[in-house]
């Protein structure tokens, strides 16, 4: 089986093929959806087969089983060699299953959800392109290919968020093209960090490839930089007046900048709430399960770098905790369904970032997987709610939908419970592992407490959301809600099942996932990680669950019974605003990051561009230089035109002048 390694090429090949077919050949919406979904389902099957092939590979001494299929040597300039190769090891396998599996479910869901849309073919083409780019990201065997996928998913995010580019505003008041541009630009800011990090890695560590490779099979090895991190562990970079900084720290901080952009952490998360302007399947796939997790994957992949720089790792954890907390608080104050889930995603990503920052890679990947499942479930169910509520997204217009949309209600409830971390749903296991690692192994008790607090807030806002949507009386009676069709509800049920049993992936005692991932990250010769569960961890788990359950119940109760529930009105601010005032407003606008960027950067930039375009370009260059030259020529020509009098006598006169001059010349010389 070892010579079947080419099978890993088929994983990205099918979505790429789907994209090309959809772009160039298909014009019919129904076929587009089927082709796209089929491509991703095939990719999923290929991923499963690739795992089998992977397991059949011989186990090397260190680093775990790995397939590195190099297609050709892409760049070869002196010592800078970058092969175009696909990597498939345990970490990639896990990500690939998530991407293709959840992706396939969402593709099928989209066939039903996007029915009637005018641009379905384009939509499915872009979805396939996205899956392809994401696979390139996780299967690239060097930083440059990863960056290729990184940019590709950014591009697809832009294209898909802007799907409704012909509408000036979608609920709750976002301009889709503006949101798409914002996503791209903010990602770009992060990409600066990525590019600088890549440059630094190459210049200090000698290569961009993760692991040793022999692309031309001629003995000229391209070294992998991960193994050489210790070479620079103590090297310093002199910043002149700013002191010195460790090289590894510098690289890690630059990577962190890229991660905050792509994975929507503080301070570059502002694009994600507005990205909800795109269709709901896009939110589910890209902004819940896959693209935003690429930052987590990246940090997991270059773990040795972060282990070499405790300072940077500390920053990662700090940012993760901060994000988890701020986003959770912001989610409480939203009244648009998808915006609640958007901030929730940002918050949960914070958990994952904390985990990989601390070095608990398998805990982080565990939460990545479970979050991918239940967040996708929540988004798809939200889509079903929106669909059934006749495209209303404002929760103040809903209420009492539980009886009208039972399947949606139950699946949504399962997703919410998983997100809140209630035993025995998937979220409980993964979130708890992160918190307990922070408390016990990672030596960050403060962080752990903050994370517990954040999970309480998470449960609270989920309870609030469930109450506002599914309980009470329908506040806006202008529409009649209906349950969605099977093509929508069946994927919901599949994901709901996943949300329930997802904890089995890394169940304490079984820990399949951590065993699977262990070889990738273990340093040779280190003692095995202590996997036994102490009583302290058990108590912590119980305490966190009880606190979360209590908060969730409180949120639900507040918005179904009592004075607060009665005061929820369409178009009015949330009843709790009364008690918190500006704090509530602050939470609602995402703590002012967006406002700040708008005033400090966007507006001056727009003014400068307007000046350049209207004054400098139109008046200065067009008017003075271009038109002015033309007009000058015109006037000069007009004045010269006076010589053409049309009188023959004048022409003969000129003639005579010439004759006189010539005769004079010959006479006098």
């Amino acid at each position, binding site marked *: 089986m070892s010579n079947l390694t080419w099978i890993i090429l088929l994983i990205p090949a099918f979505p790429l093929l789907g994209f090309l077919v959809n772009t160039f050949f298909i014009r019919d919406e129904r076929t587009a959806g089927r082709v796209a979904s089929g491509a991703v389902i095939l990719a999923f099957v290929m991923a499963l087969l690739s795992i089998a092939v992977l397991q059949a590979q011989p186990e090397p001494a260190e680093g775990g089983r790995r397939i590195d299929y190099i297609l050709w040597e892409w760049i070869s300039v002196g010592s800078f060699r970058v092969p175009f190769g696909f990597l498939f090891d345990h970490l990639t396998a896990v990500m690939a299953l998530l991407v293709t599996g959840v992706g396939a479910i969402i593709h099928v869901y989209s066939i039903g959800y996007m029915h009637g849309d005018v641009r379905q073919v384009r939509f499915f083409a872009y979805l396939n392109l996205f899956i392809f780019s994401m696979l390139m990201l996780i299967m690239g065997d060097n930083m440059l290919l990863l960056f290729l996928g990184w940019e590709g998913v950014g591009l697809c995010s832009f294209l898909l968020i802007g799907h409704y580019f012909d509408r000036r505003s979608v609920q709750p008041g976002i301009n889709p093209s503006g949101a798409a541009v914002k996503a791209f630009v903010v990602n770009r800011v992060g990409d600066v960090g990525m590019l600088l990090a890549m440059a630094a890695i190459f210049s200090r560590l000698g290569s961009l490839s993760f692991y040793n490779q022999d692309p031309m099979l001629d003995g000229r090895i391209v070294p992998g930089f991960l193994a050489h991190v210790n070479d620079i562990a103590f090297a310093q970079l002199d910043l002149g007046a700013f002191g010195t900084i460790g090289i590894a720290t510098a690289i890690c901080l630059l990577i962190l900048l890229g991660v905050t952009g792509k994975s929507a952490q503080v301070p570059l998360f502002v694009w994600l709430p507005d990205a909800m302007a795109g269709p709901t399947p896009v939110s589910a796939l890209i902004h819940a399960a896959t693209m935003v997790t690429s930052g987590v994957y990246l940090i997991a992949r270059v773990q040795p770098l972060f282990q070499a720089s405790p300072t940077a790792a500390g920053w990662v954890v700090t940012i993760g905790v901060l994000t988890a907390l701020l986003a959770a608080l912001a989610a409480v104050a939203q009244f648009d369904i998808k915006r609640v889930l958007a901030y929730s995603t940002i918050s949960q990503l914070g958990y994952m970032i904390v985990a990989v920052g601390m070095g608990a890679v398998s805990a982080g990947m565990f939460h990545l997987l479970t979050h991918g499942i239940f967040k996708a479930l929540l988004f798809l169910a939200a889509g079903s709610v929106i669909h059934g509520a006749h495209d209303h997204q404002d929760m103040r217009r809903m209420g009492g939908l539980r009886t009208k949309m039972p399947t949606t209600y139950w699946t949504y409830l399962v997703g919410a419970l998983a997100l809140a971390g209630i035993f025995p749903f998937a979220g409980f296991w993964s979130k708890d592992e992160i918190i307990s690692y922070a408390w016990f192994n990672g030596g960050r008790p403060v962080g752990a407490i903050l994370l517990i607090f954040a999970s309480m807030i998470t449960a609270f806002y989920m309870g609030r959301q469930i109450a506002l949507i599914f309980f009470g009386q329908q506040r806006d009676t202008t529409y009649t809600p209906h349950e969605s069709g099977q093509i929508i509800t069946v994927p919901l049920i599949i994901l709901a099942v996943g949300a329930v049993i997802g904890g089995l992936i890394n169940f304490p005692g079984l820990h399949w996932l951590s065993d699977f991932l262990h070889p990738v990250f273990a340093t040779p010769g280190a003692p095995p990680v202590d996997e036994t569960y102490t009583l302290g961890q058990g108590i912590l788990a119980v305490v966190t669950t009880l606190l979360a359950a209590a908060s969730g119940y409180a949120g639900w109760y507040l918005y179904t019974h009592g004075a607060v529930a009665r005061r929820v009105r369409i178009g009015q601010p949330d009843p709790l605003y009364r008690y918190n005032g500006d704090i509530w407003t602050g939470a609602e606008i995402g703590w002012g990051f967006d406002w700040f960027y708008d005033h400090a950067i966007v507006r001056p930039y727009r003014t400068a561009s307007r000046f350049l375009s209207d004054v400098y370009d139109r008046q200065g260059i067009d008017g003075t230089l271009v038109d002015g030259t033309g007009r000058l020529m015109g006037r000069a020509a007009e004045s010269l035109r006076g010589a053409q009098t049309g*009188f023959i006598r*004048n022409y003969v*006169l000129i003639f*005579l002048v010439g004759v*006189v001059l010539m*005769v004079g010349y010959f*006479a006098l010389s």
Partner: protein
Amino acid sequence: MEYIVFVVTAIIAAVGAVAMVLSKNAVHSALFLLLNFGAISVLYLLLRAPFLFVVQLIVYAGAIIVLFLFVVMLLGAERVEDTPDSIAWQRPLAIGLGILLLLEALYVAFSRTVGAVTPVAQRNEDFASPERIGQALFSTYLLPFEITSVVLLAAIVGVVVLSKRSGRVEQAQRALEHDADGRSEQMEQVMERVG
């Protein structure tokens, strides 16, 4: 003796030329030109060119002037320049340039060729007699002679073609006749004859 004849004839030629240019009436101009041609033919005679003397009188004075007079009378073009000049600066400038040209020519004549053109010693009185000219024309200069006949043929054909009346010209003239007011009687008659 010859000097006196030369001076008188030269004065007559010059006066005729100037009068031709100055005269307002085109018929007068033609007649003054005739006078000028006559004087020039006498000058040819002074220069021992009897053949050219006769040819000048026959062709220039006899045919070309007649042709001019014919056309002047046909077109009624005696008084064309009654309207004021639209480019008044042309006249002084032209006169100035003309004088300049004259001065240049005189300068060349007086200073560059000191004295006279080197005369050849032999002065055969009938070196330009008709016989000798005839001999030259039909031997050395036969080709130009024949080509000249072609030129004359071309001129004849050209004149005939140009004088043809085309239908469109007639219609245009009819239209102009209907439109035109205040045309002189002369013009009416001319239109009858020409159109």
